[in-house]
């Protein structure tokens, strides 16, 4: 297991290095002076030079790159170009919001997706199975921002009720914070859980036909324990594979959710950076997003090897 972990880690670092190179040099390849975006097209040469010097853009590219990369790894990636705020302190203030969104939407996705996927497989071709499959097809087809828009419109029409949007830190008023976080994250979870339902269902149906499940049944085990103890554990291995991809999708979803519900999280920060063409913010946020997704993939790989020892020796 240690050798396997080490091999995965060795694989992990070069990819992150390439992400950092690509994001950094992509922002430098953009034609035009970034200074003009912030100083206006009429800026004088001296102003541009002073601005570049202030942001360290007059240094050699290699120096800028290593300075930035070091900052990213230390959690202090420098200042934003637009307002000059410290990006690191902005991130620390916003992290809890996005973390809550990701935690809740990921939790809902897994619980809903796996539960209904298992139920659909166990009761194959029943009305439950058909409704789950119908829900899954629709769930995958409705764009997240439409679900969230409907979340605001429909309760208003039906019950003249508006879910409380805005932001209250969790510890100040837990009940209100939950009221704000649960409805939108539940909506965000629909898409992913629809995909999970389909994968879980297909995978469990395959496993239920396997020889060892027949053996388990012929030993006289109760159906409940055949399904839960023997089948589901193996059926969940392919489900795990997409957990990393799911995190990436939810991070995009979080950006949309924060945009609609005005929650001051990292997604909103990324979005503002993009709108202002603030390259420092954009490349830093892309880098951190990649680190999170890669870590999720790494965790999945390791968990995989724990669940299925054969993988370690491939």
């Amino acid at each position: 297991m240690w050798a396997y972990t080490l091999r995965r880690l060795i694989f992990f670092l070069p990819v992150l290095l390439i992400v950092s190179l690509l994001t950094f040099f992509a922002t430098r390849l953009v034609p035009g002076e970034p200074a003009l975006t912030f100083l206006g097209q009429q800026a004088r040469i001296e102003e541009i030079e002073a601005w570049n010097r202030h942001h360290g853009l007059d240094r050699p590219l290699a120096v800028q790159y290593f300075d930035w990369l070091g900052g990213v790894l230390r959690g202090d990636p420098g200042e934003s170009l637009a307002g000059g705020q410290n990006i690191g302190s902005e991130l620390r203030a916003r992290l809890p919001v996005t973390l809550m969104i990701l935690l809740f939407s990921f939790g809902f996705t897994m619980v809903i997706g796996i539960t209904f996927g298992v139920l659909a497989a166990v009761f194959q071709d029943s009305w439950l199975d058909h409704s789950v499959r119908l829900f899954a097809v629709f769930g995958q087809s409705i764009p997240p921002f439409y679900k969230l828009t409907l979340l605001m419109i429909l309760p208003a029409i039906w019950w003249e009720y508006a879910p409380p949007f805005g932001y209250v830190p969790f510890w100040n008023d837990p009940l209100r914070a939950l009221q704000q976080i649960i409805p939108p994250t539940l909506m965000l979870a629909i898409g992913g859980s629809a995909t999970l339902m389909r994968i879980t269902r297909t995978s469990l149906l395959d496993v239920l036909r396997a020889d060892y499940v027949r053996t388990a049944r012929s030993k006289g085990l109760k159906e409940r324990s055949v399904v839960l103890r023997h089948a589901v554990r193996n059926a969940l291995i392919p489900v795990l594979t997409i957990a990393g991809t799911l995190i990436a999708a939810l991070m995009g979803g979080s950006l949309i959710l924060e945009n609609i519900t005005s929650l001051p999280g990292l997604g909103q920060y990324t979005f503002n950076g993009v709108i202002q063409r603030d390259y420092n913010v954009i490349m830093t946020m892309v880098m951190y997003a990649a680190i999170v997704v890669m870590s999720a993939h790494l965790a999945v790989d390791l968990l995989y090897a724990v669940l299925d020892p054969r993988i370690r020796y491939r």
Partner: protein
Amino acid sequence: MSSAHLTITDAVLPPPSSRRRLRPLLRFAARKPLGAVGAVLLLTAVLLAVFAPAVAPYDPAKNLLGQRLKPPSAAHPFGTDAQSRDLLSRIIHGARLSLTVGIGSVLLGTVTGAALGILSGYLGGWVDLLLQRLVDVMLAIPNLILAIAMVAMLGQSLTNVVIALGVAQAPRVCLVVRGMTLTLRAQPFVEAARSLGATDRRVMLRHLLPNVAAPIIVLVTAGLGGAIVAETSLSFLGLGAPVTTPSWGEMLSNQARRFMTVAPWLGIFPGLAITTVVLSVNLLGDALRDLLDPRLRV
């Protein structure tokens, strides 16, 4: 040709040949009714988009005097918006942008991804190593964040939105096609072609490409739904193609949010249009996947 000159073959031949052409379609409809429904809905959406000016009851940009924020009625089945424009006409015209960007980016992403996948799988070695690290990198960045970052850097234009969404899709196609190429490469027919002196280029284009065509068709349909959602998401965030024509995503962002309590139809109908099109693509995609490539079944 006048009817007097009709020969016996002219009169007899067309029906069987057209029926023969229709037969696979009918068989498809019988085996996969939901897929057929999807195909019909998608075709309808494409036709509406192409013939939008002829089909739409009103000019989508015209401000109809005294018709501001009217609820759905016989004259305006989907109601009117805050600039007194007919919502149904705007939604019909909105299909143009979503379908153009969706189809354009899927084609770009699939062609690039498939080409790189075949190269990577067939050539192996350092080409494979390099391309696969690049794929890992692309997969590590959430698609939506990659797309908005690219649009921000390249500048907001129709072409750049297509490029950003196409690039976001290429890695997944590349992975699947590479995997298949690896299996195909070891098969006797590839060895036979090479021993007959076929160049690498010929092996890839004439022998490998046709064999990965079916999964590629499946990937195209599977990708189209996602691409349309991505396009509308960008427009919704105000980072889509800066067009003067109506856009579904944009309709849901500004007016729908500002007037959601007084004019909920502004939020409901554009979203329904997106959902219907994406649903039809997904239904068709599922059916094609079941028929063409059961290995990809999810």
